């Protein structure tokens, strides 16, 4: 382990106060000994930097997929007191409400007789990659509704069912959205991109439920072994990126105005209750809503392709759940025996609310929230359930993916996109992307093994394994 970091238990490590000057609380992160070998000093530094921010409660937390980002580390979680705490775009990221959703189908693997043809039809139906524009002509009024109502806008416009909304974190809409804090520039970027996937690590994947670990929870979530399902990973597109860019600028001024010392300029922030902090929060919530509407639109496009190709009913493809993994939210948590509202930042981390927690649909209240953890291209994804342990230890949070271990430049030198695609095809996985580099960038080898990361959160109890999903075909942006 890195100098200055101490072991705090099995799979648990502490960064003591003093690791960087000005830390108000310790840092704490969760890693197996094997994963600890891959830890970057930059990520530890960033976790310690977060601990210097005013009003941080208990500790600065790192999930087992922690890696070096900007501002917060990726896999970082921090909660702030509403009275003394701050809100920071560096704790959310440029891609506000980047998230994942999963829907199931009544199909089995044998039903997909022409998998390549089907993947191609999905690729054509969902605009993908750099410069891709939506076929949807979103009016300025519709854009406003997307930002105010989130997934509900999409459902009301005919792109989904009422039941879908109950299966989204926050019902697919943050009520605190304030569109006055969203610039004309952000709006201009949002208009042509509704229903587009984007690029980088965003994807749409056809998967098969290959293993069930928890029959009761799987049944409640609607998951059956051998069933075909579809996972969608994307965020708020250029609109969200612009909201982050715009507010970084105003919050930088605010950081000076409120005399907040910062170890990293990307951690620029403002008191949650300040006009600048409230404006960022309102704009961020609007961008988060846009992202929920976006994922709803993409799911609708995918469902139509399933309907067309396999003659199955729209209603037979229920949404399991939709989680966000880049967001700041006001949530109530227990601190020193008292329930207190906190501003919880999750930057590359997933909410993992346990049984009985608020915001769970009634039929899942006894089980816990579905937690969806995508694997890298070619490796398994997992469905887990939220736990009481996460509520006690991590403000109801767990990991969000597997975490990169290799840079994009290294990845491209190591293997061409064609080699990666051929290698995956040999395992029965079809990859479709706009260019070869997009495939090479996201080769399975550039990520930590998803199964190891998920095993750590399961062992610590931050979420509990329910099912394993194996990839069959993937569209990369």
């Amino acid at each position, binding site marked *: 382990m890195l100098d200055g970091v101490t072991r705090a238990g099995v799979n648990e490590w502490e960064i003591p106060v003093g690791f960087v000057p000005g830390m108000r609380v310790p840092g704490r992160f969760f890693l197996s000994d094997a994963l600890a070998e891959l830890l*970057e000093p930059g990520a530890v530094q*960033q976790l310690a930097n977060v601990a210097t921010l005013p009003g941080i409660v208990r500790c600065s937390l790192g999930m087992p997929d922690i*890696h*070096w*980002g*900007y*501002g917060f580390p*990726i896999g970082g979680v921090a909660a702030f007191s509403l009275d003394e705490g701050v809100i920071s775009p*560096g704790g959310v*990221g*440029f*891609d506000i409400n980047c998230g994942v959703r999963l829907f199931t189908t009544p199909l089995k693997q044998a039903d997909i007789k022409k998998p390549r043809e089907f993947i191609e039809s999905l690729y054509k139906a969902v605009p993908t*990659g*750099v*410069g891709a524009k939506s076929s949807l002509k979103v009016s300025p009024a519709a854009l406003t509704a997307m930002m105010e109502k989130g997934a509900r806008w999409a459902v009301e416009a005919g792109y989904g069912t009422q039941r879908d909304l109950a299966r989204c974190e926050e019902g697919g809409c943050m009520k605190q959205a304030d569109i006055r804090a969203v610039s004309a*520039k952000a709006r*201009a*970027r949002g208009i042509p991109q509704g229903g587009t996937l*984007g*690029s*980088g690590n965003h994807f749409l994947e056809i998967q098969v439920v290959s293993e069930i670990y928890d029959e009761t929870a799987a049944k409640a979530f609607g998951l059956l072994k051998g069933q075909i399902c579809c996972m969608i990973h994307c965020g708020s597109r*250029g609109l969200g*990126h*612009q909201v*982050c*860019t715009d507010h*970084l*600028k105003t919050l*930088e001024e605010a950081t000076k105005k409120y005399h907040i010392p910062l170890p*990293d*300029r*990307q951690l*620029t922030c403002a008191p949650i209750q300040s006009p600048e902090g409230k404006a960022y929060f309102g704009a961020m919530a609007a961008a988060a809503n846009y992202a929920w509407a976006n994922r709803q639109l993409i799911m609708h496009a995918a469902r139509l392709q399933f309907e067309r190709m396999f003659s199955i009913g729209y209603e037979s493809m229920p949404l399991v759940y939709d989680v966000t993994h880049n967001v700041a939210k006001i949530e109530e948590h227990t601190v020193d025996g008292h329930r207190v509202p906190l501003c919880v930042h999750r930057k590359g981390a997933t909410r993992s609310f346990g049984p009985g927690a608020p915001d769970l649909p009634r039929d899942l209240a006894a089980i816990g929230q579905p937690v969806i953890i995508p694997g890298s291209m070619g490796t398994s994804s997992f469905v887990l359930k939220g736990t009481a342990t996460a509520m006690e230890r991590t403000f109801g949070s767990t990991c969000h993916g597997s975490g*990169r*271990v*290799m*840079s*994009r*430049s*290294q990845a491209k030198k190591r293997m061409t996109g064609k080699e990666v695609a051929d290698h995956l095809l040999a395992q029965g996985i079809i990859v479709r992307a*706009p*260019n070869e*580099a*997009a495939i090479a*960038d996201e080769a399975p080898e550039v990520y930590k093994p998803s199964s190891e990361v998920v095993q750590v959160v399961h062992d610590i109890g931050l979420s509990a394994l329910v099912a394993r999903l194996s990839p069959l075909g993937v569209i990369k*942006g």
Partner: protein
Amino acid sequence: MSYEELSHTADVKIRACAPTLEALFGEACGALMQVMYGGDRSGGTEKTIDLDGKDLESLLCDFLSEVLYVTEVDGLVFCRTDVCLDGTHLHAVLDGEPFDHERHNKGTEVKGISYSGMCITRDAKGYMLDILFDV
């Protein structure tokens, strides 16, 4: 081309070198276009950007953020950037062409320009920049 991609696990880290600050800003813009669209880019359509920054880092960050906005909203892909700096005022003329799906769908979207790890240094040979693009 006097920029290179450095190793960074999550994002794209660029190191650019140039004899002058103006050329350094141009190199950074070139690197941004390369990451997003690949190397096949031509000129013919000009776009002007004018802005003021508080310091050199914010001027560069604001400039590249503005390029991100323009490239997306105007659908333009740039091959050449001429930058003039006057104190903390920037005037840039970018030469480019409309986005062509076949030729330009070769890279990855950049979500934002980060201050984390941004560093502009000067030595006898000129200027060097390290900068992180969130992808």
